[in-house]
């Protein structure tokens, strides 16, 4: 079910991403202040936006699981969250590189995107720990969903509060202000954003398809062979 159209999607993703980064390197002008380093913006910000959406989506899936008690929603939440977590690491790394390249420091406390992501990353790092610490798989799914809802609501609030906290006289143009960008930069940025979103969706579908296939095989084995041994030991990932 998830596997349908996966190949077309993957192709589309590859095309969009290649187009976006080709544009970044060969077409868009260098930033007046920061030079070449600023180009990391086209990687950093799309990652951040997609990750934020992914975390919120995880929260929505978690809420659906709590409402319907259907394990598949928990799986969707799990995949969305751990893909977003990977992107979050990417945000922190690219942000750090940019900070060092443009401003000479490996970290900037007055860059709200970076700071919020640090907090969000630390929060979601507990997701797997929480899952692993509950053995009963229904309860694990339920508690994970509660976490997903709580954390998903937290992400936008946290971003808003952190942003309020740092007083900006000269906002560094890494991520927060996309207004005032010349046309070519905006176009490239949008294409990069689209590519990143497609990448997320493709990876998500891929992983869902893979996990569903594993679950189906297990169900078949259980039915045909009565093979209870096919069940995994204690795991943090949802088992359908």
């Amino acid at each position, binding site marked *: 079910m998830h596997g349908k159209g996966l190949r077309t999607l993957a192709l589309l993703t590859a095309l969009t991403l290649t187009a976006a980064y080709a544009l970044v390197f060969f077409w868009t002008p260098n930033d007046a202040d920061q030079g070449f380093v600023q180009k990391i913006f086209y990687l950093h910000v799309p990652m951040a936006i997609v990750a934020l959406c992914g975390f919120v989506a995880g929260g929505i899936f978690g809420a659906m699981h709590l409402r319907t008690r259907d394990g598949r929603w928990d799986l969707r939440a799990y995949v969305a969250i751990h893909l977003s977590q990977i992107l979050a690491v990417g945000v922190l790394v690219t942000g750090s590189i940019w900070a060092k390249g443009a401003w000479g420091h490996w970290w900037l406390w007055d860059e709200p995107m970076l700071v919020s992501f640090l907090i969000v990353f630390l929060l979601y790092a507990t997701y797997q720990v929480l899952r692993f610490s509950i053995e009963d*798989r229904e309860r694990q799914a339920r508690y994970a969903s509660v976490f997903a809802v709580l954390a998903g609501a937290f992400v936008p609030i946290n971003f808003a509060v952190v942003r309020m906290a740092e007083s900006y006289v000269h906002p560094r143009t890494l991520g927060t202000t996309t207004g005032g960008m010349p046309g070519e930069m905006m176009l490239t940025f949008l294409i990069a954003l689209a590519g990143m979103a497609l990448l997320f969706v493709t990876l998500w579908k891929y992983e869902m398809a893979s996990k569903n296939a594993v679950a189906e095989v297990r169900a078949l084995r259980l039915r045909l062979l009565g093979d209870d041994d096919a*069940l995994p030991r204690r795991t943090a990932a949802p088992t359908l």
Partner: protein
Amino acid sequence: MDEPAIELAGLGRRFGERTALRDVTLTVPAGATLVVLGPNGAGKSTLLRVLAGLLRPHAGTARVLGHPLPQEGWAVRGRIGLLAHEPMLYRDLTPRENLRFHGRLHGVGRERVEEVLEAVGMTARADDPVATLSRGMVQRVAAARAVLHDPELLLLDEPLANLDPAASELLEPLVGRASGRTRVVTSHDPAGGLAGADLALGLRGGRPAICAPAAEVAAADATALYA
């Protein structure tokens, strides 16, 4: 009260990958006593907890006091009394304080608390922290807690386990057959358990090995469950 107190059909419950109960089907009329026999780990306590509404069934259907569980679990809360291995009492509070607390949760007043304290013979020690009481006394207070709100259905997990004969006699009118309530009692005593019951359910490995009126079950069959 024509409606049976308990109706189970194909009831199942698992914990992770382990199946604790499977295919339990029975009907208990109002006012009757069902004895549940079986070795440790057979699923007796699990069955009680499902009937109490603390665990939701994973298979089959359950109707308790005319309401399907878990959909209408809220309708039967407060009409069931559970006396389990855990006394459900706060060790640092006194019996009186514990009972008053439970009373408030169930909308029961102070006079009733004093009544049950008297009935289980604990008025003298009602103001000593539960931690200072002997196991038998704790059991008595737990029994008081179970009947405080005058439940229609009593679920008793080896209720007389820690009690001396005098105490057992004391509790008989409250939680025994004489109380007139519908009761589900687990027991490790095949002969005694069968004698005091109308229906018998013998569990082995979560499955019902015996399910019949108590009078038709021979004590030997019940003992065979432990083999």
